[in-house]
C-alpha cells in the first residue's frame, strides 16, 4: 500500500473518529462516571446487533436501494427463535437455523419482488415491514417468549472481556468491508449503485447481484436477531421497532450515499458507534426525553454536515 493510500485511508475515517472523540470528551466532562471501562463495555455489549444490521444496510444503500424492513424482520426472526426454543423446546441449533432461514427468506422476498417487477425497494420493504411485524405477533401470539439459559451459549464471553456477539460483529464488519472493496461481488454492487443501466449493457445481469444483497441483508438481520434475543434471553414480538431508521441514520452518518454507488462498512461502524455513544451519554446525563430527541436530531444533521466537508465530490458540484 502506497503512502498516499495510507493517508487517504486515515483521512477517510478521521472525520468520524474526531466526531466520536468530541462526543466522548463532552460526555466525560459532563458526567462523573461516563469515561470508564464499564461504559465502553456496556456500549460494546449493546451495539453488535446494530453493527450487523448496519453492515447489511450499507450494502443495500450502495446499490441505491433501501431496506425498511430490518426492524420488523428482526422481530420476526427473534419471535421464531423464541417460540422454537421456549415453546416447541427445539434444540438450540434448530432454533438458530430456523431464525436464519426466516431472515434469509424475508431478504429473498424483498429482493425477488423488487428485482422481478422492478419495484423501488422502498415500497417493497415497507410492505415487508408490515408483513414481518404481523408475522412476529402471529407467531408469538403477541407474547414475549422467555427463553432463559437455553440461549446463553450465544452470548458467552469470549476473549478479553469482549462478548462473542461483539467479536462476531467486528468480524462481519471487517469481512464486509473487504468484500465491498476487494471482491468482484463488491465492485458489482458499487457499479450497480452508480449506473445500473451501464452494468446491464456490460453484459452483466444486475438482478441476481441485487437479490444477493437483499438476501444478505436478511441473513445479517437474522444474526442480529439471535444476538439480541440472547442478550435479553427473551423474544419480544415488538423487538426492533424503529431500527430501520436508526440503521439508515448510522449508515448515512458514516458517509454512505443514499443515491448509491458509494459506501463503506467501516464508516457505518463508526456511525453506529456515534449513535450509541450519544444515546449512552445522554442517558448518563439523564436529561429529559424531549431534550434527548432534539439533541439526537441535531447531532444526526451536524454529523452529516461535517462529513460533507471531508469529501466534497468535485464532479458533483451542483448537488
Amino acid at each position, binding site marked *: 500500500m502506497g503512502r498516499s493510500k495510507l493517508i487517504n485511508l486515515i483521512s477517510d475515517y478521521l472525520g468520524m473518529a474526531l466526531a466520536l472523540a468530541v462526543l466522548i470528551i463532552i460526555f466525560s466532562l459532563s458526567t462523573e462516571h461516563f469515561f470508564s471501562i464499564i461504559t465502553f463495555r456496556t456500549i460494546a455489549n449493546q451495539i453488535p446487533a446494530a453493527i450487523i444490521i448496519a453492515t447489511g444496510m450499507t450494502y443495500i444503500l450502495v446499490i441505491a436501494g433501501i431496506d425498511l424492513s430490518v426492524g420488523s424482520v428482526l422481530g420476526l426472526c427473534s419471535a421464531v427463535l423464541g417460540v422454537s426454543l421456549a415453546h416447541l423446546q427445539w434444540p438450540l441449533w434448530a432454533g438458530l437455523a430456523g431464525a436464519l432461514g426466516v431472515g434469509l427468506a424475508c431478504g429473498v422476498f424483498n429482493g425477488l419482488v423488487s428485482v422481478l417487477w422492478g419495484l423501488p425497494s422502498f415500497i417493497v420493504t415497507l410492505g415487508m415491514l408490515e408483513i414481518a411485524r404481523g408475522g412476529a405477533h402471529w407467531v408469538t401470539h403477541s407474547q414475549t417468549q422467555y427463553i432463559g439459559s437455553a440461549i446463553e451459549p450465544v452470548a458467552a464471553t469470549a476473549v478479553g472481556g469482549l462478548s462473542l456477539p461483539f467479536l462476531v460483529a467486528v468480524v462481519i464488519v471487517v469481512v464486509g468491508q473487504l468484500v465491498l472493496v476487494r*471482491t*468482484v461481488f463488491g465492485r458489482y454492487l458499487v*457499479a450497480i449503485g*452508480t*449506473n445500473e443501466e451501464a*452494468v446491464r449493457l456490460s*453484459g*452483466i445481469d444486475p438482478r441476481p447481484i441485487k437479490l444477493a444483497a437483499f438476501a444478505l441483508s436478511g441473513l445479517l438481520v437474522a444474526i442480529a436477531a439471535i444476538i439480541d434475543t440472547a442478550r435479553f434471553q427473551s423474544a419480544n414480538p415488538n423487538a426492533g421497532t424503529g431500527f430501520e431508521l436508526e440503521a439508515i441514520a448510522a449508515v448515512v452518518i458514516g458517509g454512505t450515499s443514499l443515491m448509491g454507488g458509494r459506501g463503506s462498512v467501516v464508516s457505518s461502524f463508526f456511525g453506529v458507534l456515534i449513535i450509541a455513544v450519544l444515546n449512552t451519554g445522554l442517558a448518563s446525563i439523564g436529561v429529559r426525553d424531549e431534550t434527548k430527541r432534539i439533541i439526537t436530531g441535531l447531532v444526526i444533521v451536524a454529523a452529516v454536515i461535517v462529513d460533507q466537508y471531508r469529501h466534497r465530490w468535485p464532479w458533483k458540484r451542483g448537488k
Partner: protein
Amino acid sequence: MDASGQGKLLVVTGLEKSYSAKVLSEVDLSIGAGEVHALVGENGAGKSTLAGIVAGLVKPDGGHMNLNGRPYAPRNRRDAESSGIRLVMQELNLIGNLTLAESLFFDRLPHRLGWINYNRLNEQARPLLDQVGLGELDPTRLVSSLGVGQQQLIEIAVGLSRRCDLLILDEPTAALTDPEIDRLFAQIVRLKANGVGMIYISHRLEEVQRVADRISVLRDGQLVFTRRPSETSLEEIVRWMVGRELGSVVRQRPARSGGAVALRVRGLRAGPAVQDVSFEARYGEILGFAGLMGSGRTETMRALYGADRREAGQIFLRGSDVPAKIRTPSDAVRRGLALLTENRKEQGLLLPMAVRANISLSHLGSISRWGGWVQTAVEQAVALRWIQNLRIRCASAEQPAVELSGGNQQKVVIAKWLCRDCEVMIFDEPTRGIDVGAKFEVYRLLADLADKGKAIIIVSSDLKELMASCDRIAVMSAGRLAAVFDRGEWSQDAIMAAALSGYGVNL
C-alpha cells in the same frame, strides 16, 4: 472463421424493426472477415438500431442473421459477445465510481474465489490505456474524473481489449481530435490484419473514406447504397444520405471583422485543467476553440459559465470594466451567457421528458403568463418550429427525449439554447453525433446568429469544421491558451503545432 475471406463473417437479411414508426425495413448487409464496413446515414436513419440488433441489445421484429454460416439470434449482449461480436456504443455507458482499470475489465475482473487481484488488473490495464493514447493516466483513477473525449477512448479500449470476430464501432470519433483518431485507425488496421470484421458508424465522411473497405448508406431505415470508397465520391454519398444536393458539406464563412468586445476573460484558473486563460470574444464573430483532447477547453468554458468553481480570473461582459459576478450558471444566463454542454445525456437532457419540455426548459419564463402559468399552445408552437428548423426526427413533440437517436438528441439540446436569446453563446462540441446535413444547418444557424450581432464560441474537436466556420480560432494546449489565429492566418499545421506546444514532445 473462413480464412480465405471469401465466405462472409456476418450476413444480415431482411432485418425489420419498428417502434412507434418503422425504423428498419428489409435491411440486407454483409461483413467479411477483415473487412471494415462503414455505415452512414442521417440522424435517426437507424444505424444504432441496426448495430444494437447485431450486438444483441435490440430484438428485431423480422429477418435473420447468419454468423460464420450458422444462424445467429443473440438473446442479449452476453450472448453476442460469446459469439464473438462486440459493440462500442454511441452513448457513453461508463460507471463513474469505478477506476479506469475496473471499467476496462468490468465483466472479467481477474480474481481468485471472487477476490480481485488488483496488481494484475492494473498491470493489464496499462497496455490497453497505452493503445488508445491514455497511457499517462493512472489506472486507479476514477472514470468520473475524465472528460467526455477520454471517456470515449476508454469505451473504445474496452471494445479493443477482447478477442472478437466482429467489432462494431458506433460513432467512436465524435468527441475525438485528430491524433486520437489516427491512433484509433492504427488499431483498426491492426485488427483488420488479424481478420476481425468491423462495422464502422460515423458522420465524418472523410474518415469513413479513409478506413472503410465498403460504405453503405442507410436512409429512413432502408439500405439504399453500398460501394467501395474508390467507386464513389463524398458528394454521391451525401446525396444518397439526404436524398438531395447539399453543395459543399461545410460552407466557408466569408471573412468579416467582429464588432465590440462582448466577453473578456482574464487570468482564468480552475483546477489543473485551466491555467491562466485570457481571451476575448466580439459581437458578430464566431470564435473557435481548438486543442487536443483534455487540453482544458471544456473546463475553461464551464469555469467562465460558473458551472465549476473558479480559483482565479475575472470575466467582463459588454465591454464593461467591472468584472461580472458569475458564480452559478443562473448568474451567467441572467447576464446573457449560454453554454451548451458536451455531455448531452448527463448534463443536457431531461431524458424521460418530452422533446417539447426539453426545448422550452431554458426559457419557460417567456412563454408563461400570470407569473408562471405555462402557455402550452405557445410552448407547443415553439417546439414544433425548432423541430422543423433542425429537422429533429421524432414521432411528435411529446416523444420522450430518451427515445430519440443520438444525433437528434443533440439537436434537441441545441434547440434549447437557440430559442433563448443570449448575447454570448458557447457551444461545446455542438455537432457531436450530428449528420452532415444537420451540421450544415447548425453552422448556418450559428452564422446567422453571429450576423445578428451575437458573440458565438464553438469548442470542437473537428478542426476542419472550425476552420471553415470561425472568424478566429483560439488553440489550447495543456490548460493554457497557446495561440489565437485570425481567419487567413491559420493552417492545419500551425494549429496542430500550437495544440502540441504545451506537452513537450511525445504526443
